[in-house]
C-alpha cells in the first residue's frame, strides 16, 4: 500500500484543522465563528481526501490523472505535459532534503548573524558546493548581488537590513 504525497499532506492538514477546532473551542461565539467554519469545513474536506487516498492505495487503483489521460480529449495534453516534465527534470527526495537544509541554514544564519554576513556566506557556499560553479563565478556573483541589494533597499528604499541577534554588522 503506497500513500502518495497528496495523502500525507492531507493528513497533516487534517491534524491542523482538528487542532484548530479544539484550540478555538473556549472562545466566545463571535470570535469562534470564522475559525469554526474553517475548522469544521477543513476537517471534513481533508478527511475526504485522506479516506479517498487510503481507498485508492488499498485497491491499487490508478490515479485520477492517469484515468483522465486515458480519455481521448486529454491525450494530447498528457503527452505535452510529459514532454515538459522530462525536459524540466525530476525532483529527487535527496535533492529536496538538501535544498530545504540549504534554505533553513540560510534563514538560521540570517537570524543569528544578520542579513549581510549570512548572505555573504550563503551565496558563495551555495554556488560552489551545490552549484559546482567555478570560483570565479562565485567571486563575481557574490559582491554583485550584495551591491545590488544594497542599492535597491538601503539606498533606494532607505531601509537598514537586519543585523542579527549578535548585532555584528549594522547598515
Amino acid at each position, binding site marked *: 500500500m503506497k500513500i502518495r504525497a497528496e495523502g500525507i499532506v492531507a493528513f497533516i*492538514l487534517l491534524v491542523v484543522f482538528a487542532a484548530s477546532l479544539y484550540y478555538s473551542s473556549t472562545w466566545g461565539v463571535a470570535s469562534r465563528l470564522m475559525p469554526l467554519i474553517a475548522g469544521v469545513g477543513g476537517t471534513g*474536506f481533508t478527511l475526504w481526501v485522506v479516506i479517498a487516498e487510503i481507498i485508492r492505495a488499498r485497491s491499487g487503483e490508478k490515479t485520477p490523472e492517469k484515468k483522465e489521460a486515458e480519455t481521448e480529449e486529454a491525450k494530447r495534453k498528457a503527452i505535452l505535459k510529459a514532454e*515538459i516534465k522530462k525536459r524540466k527534470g525530476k525532483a529527487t527526495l535527496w535533492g529536496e532534503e538538501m535544498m530545504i537544509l540549504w*534554505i533553513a541554514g540560510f534563514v538560521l544564519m540570517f537570524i543569528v548573524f544578520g542579513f549581510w554576513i549570512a548572505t555573504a556566506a550563503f551565496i558563495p557556499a551555495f554556488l560552489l558546493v*551545490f*552549484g559546482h560553479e567555478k570560483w570565479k563565478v562565485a567571486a563575481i556573483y557574490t559582491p554583485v*548581488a550584495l551591491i545590488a*541589494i544594497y542599492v535597491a533597499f538601503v539606498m533606494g528604499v532607505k531601509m537598514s537590513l537586519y543585523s542579527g*541577534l549578535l548585532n555584528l554588522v549594522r547598515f
Partner: protein
Amino acid sequence: MLESMWAGIQYLGSVDVWLLMMLAIVVGNVIGAIPGIGGNFGLAVLIPFVFGMEPFLGLAFLLAMHSVVHTGGAIPGILFSVPGTGPTAATIIDGYQMTRQGRGGQAIGAALASSAFGGVLGAAALAVLIPGMRLIAMGLGSGEIFMLIVWGLTFIVVVSRESIPRGFAMVLLGLGLGTIGLDPFTGVGRFTFGQVWLYDGIHIVTIVLGIFAIAEMIDLGARGRGVAIAEVGEVMRFSQLWEGTIETFREWWLMLRTSLIGVFIGIIPGLGGDVASWVCYGHAVQTCKNNQNFGKGDIRGVIAPEGANNAKEGGALLPTVVFGIPGSSGMAIMLGAFLILGITPGPKMITDHLDLVWGMVYVLVIANIIGAAMIYPLGGVMGKLAYLRNSLLIPAVLAVVIVGAFLIRRMWTDVALALLFGLMGYGMKKGDFPRGPLILGFILGPLAEGYLHKALGTMGIAFLTRPVVMVFTALTILSLLYSVWQHYQDKKKARGEVK
C-alpha cells in the same frame, strides 16, 4: 468620471513612473522567459521593492510586470517546447512545431502581436465596464458583499476544476490563517499562543513569499544544478517576426474572439490563464476552417491562446478593484500589494480613487504594447534565458525573499514564518493542492468576517432575506450543486461511460 480619466493620465506625467514601468516590463519579460517560475512568483519577489513607494508608482511597477509575464513566457515555449509560464503551454502545440519547420520567428511574431492586442483589449474592456460596475458596487451593502464573497470563494473552487475537496480545503486553510491575531471585534487573541508578534496576524507577503517563492526555489533546487534544457537554439530573423505579425492581423477575427473570451474568463474568479489559453485553443480548432493543420504548426494555434492570456489580466482586474474580490491568484497577491501601498480595493476604491483605476488601465495598455515591442529586437537573447542554471537563480532569489519577508514588519520571526510557509507550499505543490485558493481565502476571509459582523450588527440574521443576498445565496448553492454534478460526470467520463 472624465476628471478621473484625466487624473489617471496625469499620473503618467512623472518620469519615475515611466522608468519603473520600463524596468518592470523588462523584469516581467525575463521572469516569463525563465521556465518554471511564472507570474505569481514574480509578484511575490517584487513586492518587497514597493515598500515605501508612492501608491501609483508601486501599482504601475507591479501591474506592468504582471501584465507582460505571459508575453515573455511564449518564447522558450515556442523555441524549446518548455513553457515559461503555465498558461503558455497551449502555445507550444503549434509554436514548437513551427520552430521545427524553421518558422520559429514567425510563431514568436504572432505570439507578440496577439499578446499585445489581447492585453490592450483587456484594458479597454476594463475601461468600458468600470462605469457600470461602479453603479453596482455602490448599491451593495455589507450583507450583499458578504454573500458575494462567499459565492466568489465557492465559485473559485468549483470552476477552477481542481479537485473539489482539495480546493475547498485550501480556501478554508486560508480563511483559518486569516483569523490569526487579535479579533478586531472582541479583542480575543486567536491562535496567537501568547506570542505578541502574532497579535497583528500574519502578513500576506509572508505567506506569498513562502508558498510561491520559497516553494518554487525548493522545487528548482531539488531538480539539481540545472542543465541547458534546450537542444537547439533558433536564430530569429526580423523578417520572420514581421511575417508572423502581419499574419496575426490577417487573422484579426480569431484574435478578437479569443481575446474577448480571455477577458470574460478573467472576470470569472478562479478560472485563470491556464483555462483561458486551453479554452481559446480549443475554440480555434473547433471554429477555424481548414483545421487539419492544428497541432502540426498552424499559426492560428499560437494566436488564439496568446491573445487570451494577456486579455484575461484586464478582466481579472475588474472584480479585484470593484468588489475587492480577486479574479485570480495573481490578482489576490496584487490585492495584498494594494494594501501595502495603503489602497483598499472594493467599492470605496471606485468612489474615492477612480483616478488610480484609470491609471491602471493606461499602465495595462502601455505595458502590453511596449512589452511586446521590446522583444522584437531582444527575442533571441531572451530565448537564451531558458539556459539559465538553477544554481545561479536560486541564491539571488532567496536573498531577495529574505529581505522582503523581513522588511514587512522588521522582525526576524516573519522570515522564519516565510520558511515555514515555504515548506507548506512545497508540500502543497507535491500533493497537488492548489495554492491560489489559499491566498484568496486568506485575503477574503477577514473581509467576509468584517462584513458579516456589520450585517449582523445592523440587521441581525434578517439580512439573509434581502433580495440581492438571496440571489447570491442561490448562486452559491447552485455552484455547489454544479460541482457535485461535475464531479459525477468526471467519474463517469473516466469510466468511459460518457464521450
